């Protein structure tokens, strides 16, 4: 039990950030929840419509579902690149004897470049006319038949807008996972190796269980970031062609600021909040259960 003076100090230090959090995060969420029961164009009076926005969203809006499944595809690609790629690179880094800092910096570089610059960069890489880097490389290696306008092809565009986002933050996850991996006691690995365990067994039985808490955090971070992904798809294709790269976030943005349908956009934003909470809950349950097993 803290003495009363200390309790007061704790409160003094905790209340301002808590208040800021309530104003900046909770209040807008509650306001969105409130607006989602109305039809509102921003300049006319609010019109109460009950749950009509939600009914339309779940039963009458094909674009919403398209955007939802696209967002899942986007999430999958981002997770594979950021967590899968991050884990592989971090593991390789631990076995690197020289130049670790250089490689780490190199991988982290995209995370510090502005999003707009990354979008421009990839627009050039994917370009077909004038021929971009990707199509040029395909020509050089004799795979010219695979060359295509990557951002205009409805079959490739979702992957094409997900890859820059995944690539961009891989370095960040490399750093986090690498920090966790080097904290694994070397004696444990050494002992296992003496007992005849191979690299895979050492990884699955010693390294991974040891970094599981960090892994849970990175999975949650990567998942929530990807579910909120907006800027690169918006800048590269604006959700097109058609709705092939439309994500829930870009759809919500357009509904609010192009269609000025703030009520319906609010119901989409409430869905995104719930979706993120459900995703985090699922990750906790699944990874904790595995750890307990």
């Amino acid at each position, binding site marked *: 039990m803290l003495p009363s003076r200390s309790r007061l100090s704790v409160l003094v230090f905790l209340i301002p950030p808590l208040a800021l959090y309530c104003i900046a995060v909770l209040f807008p969420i509650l306001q969105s929840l409130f607006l989602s029961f109305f039809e509102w164009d921003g*300049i006319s009076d609010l019109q109460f419509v009950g749950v009509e926005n939600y009914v339309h969203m779940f039963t009458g809006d094909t674009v919403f579902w398209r955007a939802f499944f696209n967002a899942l595809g986007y999430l999958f690609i981002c997770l594979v690149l950021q967590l899968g790629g991050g884990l592989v690179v971090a593991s390789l880094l631990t076995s690197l004897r020289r130049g670790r800092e250089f490689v780490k910096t190199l991988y982290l570089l995209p995370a510090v470049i502005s999003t707009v610059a990354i979008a421009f960069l990839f627009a050039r890489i994917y370009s077909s006319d*004038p021929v971009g880097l990707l199509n040029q490389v395909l020509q050089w290696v004799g795979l010219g038949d695979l060359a295509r306008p990557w951002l*205009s092809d409805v079959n490739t565009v979702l992957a094409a807008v997900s890859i820059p986002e995944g690539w961009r933050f891989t370095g960040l996850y490399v750093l986090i996972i690498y920090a966790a991996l080097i904290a694994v006691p070397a004696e444990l690995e050494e002992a296992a190796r003496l007992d005849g365990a191979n690299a895979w067994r050492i990884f699955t039985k010693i390294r991974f269980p040891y970094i599981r808490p960090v892994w849970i955090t990175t999975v949650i971070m990567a998942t929530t970031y990807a579910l909120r992904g907006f800027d690169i798809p918006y800048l590269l294709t*604006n959700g097109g062609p058609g709705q092939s790269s439309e994500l829930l976030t870009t759809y919500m943005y357009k509904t609010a600021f192009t269609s000025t*349908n703030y009520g319906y956009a609010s119901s989409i934003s409430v869905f995104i909040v719930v979706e993120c909470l459900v995703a985090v809950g699922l990750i906790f349950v699944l990874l904790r259960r595995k750890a307990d097993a």
Partner: protein
Amino acid sequence: MKKLLGTIAATAAVALALAGCSGGGGGNAGNVNPSGEIKPRQISWLLSRPADGGVITTMKQIAADYAKKHPGFSLNLITTPDRPSYIQKYETLAAANKLPELFDTDATPFAAKLAKQGRMIDAEKLLKSLGLYDDYRPAALNYQRFDDGSLYMVPFEFQLEFFWYNKALLEKAGVAVPTSLDDIPAMCTALRKAGITPIALDGQDQWPLERYMAYHPFRTAGPDYITKLKKGDAKLSDSTGTAAADWLNQLGQAKCFEDGFSSTGYSDAQGLFTSGKAAMYNIGTWELGSLATDKLDPSVRSDVDYFTLPTTKDSVTAANEYVSPSGIGMAVNAKTFDPLVRDFLKYALTEYPKRYAATGALSPTSNVETTIPDNATPLYKKAVDQANDLGDKIAMPWDTQLDPTSNTRLQQELTLLVQGNIKPEEFISTMDQTIQQNGPKAFK
């Protein structure tokens, strides 16, 4: 639990109060001559025009001259040239009731609501009271009008949209300039066979492809078609709409636009034409400086010419009627309209035409002559003179006509149709359904 419910109720009440702040805020839209003293101060214009373009350059000079006579006056120009970003900014400011003295807008349903709420000054009354109304080209004013004929925006430019083409490339493919819209698909096939990209298109910005959607119905059914369609009083499934969708499908099948056009930007598309890779390019006279002066690549300079929107077999509109926009208009905020704003507008709008025409651009008024720049090719004068031979009907760009939700969907579906990802029937049924859902309530 009770406390939690109480908190939620209080939050909801605050949200309601905040949301309620947005409405209203109008002044007297009809009072175009407010009484009182002219008190110089800074006024702002929220606009969507190129920062180094003719309008801004001219208005800066005019404002500086006005400030010399009225110390303390200044004009703060806040420009967002990217149109979708601008619209978001302007609509958000309108929702917060924070629009400045002057702001740009097209004659959209959103602007019509602002006008209805008395938040914009009646531009027709204002121009008449300033004695300037009759100077304006009727076409320039008509472009700015709402469906009921009312005028709330003042035009600052006048443009004609042409099909620019490369004579040498057409000759190489053995094709002539199309006389009918229906000739274009066959022309594209011939050009593709000759290894030439038929038409350069900025698909990324979406409005350029949407122009092609407007062309066929404008020729076969006239300008009223879109005014009916947007309210759900006409359907794309009728003969006019079906013919238009089929024509666009043919353009797609004939590979009229460059590969990957949907992700090609404005300057890349123009680059395809000016570098001699594409045979045609549909753009307005705002690009005269790039297409009809010595800035144009010498290798194509003598080969470039233009033709106006071709007709169709049973065209109901004349060959001299096509897209002739007067650009985004300037609205005057009724709430902040005072003797100073009126006096500045009187000075600015009187001075503007001659100074703007001197930059080589077409003025929205007919009382001045455009100065042809020294580095112009003969095409420049031809294009400027073309403004004197215009018919009465204007092909309105559909992006300024449809409600925003239907417009966004149309832009998306059009790309899919022209890329061959959907069939014309699917396009028609999706669009009819979308317009039916959103159009009537937007224009009620």
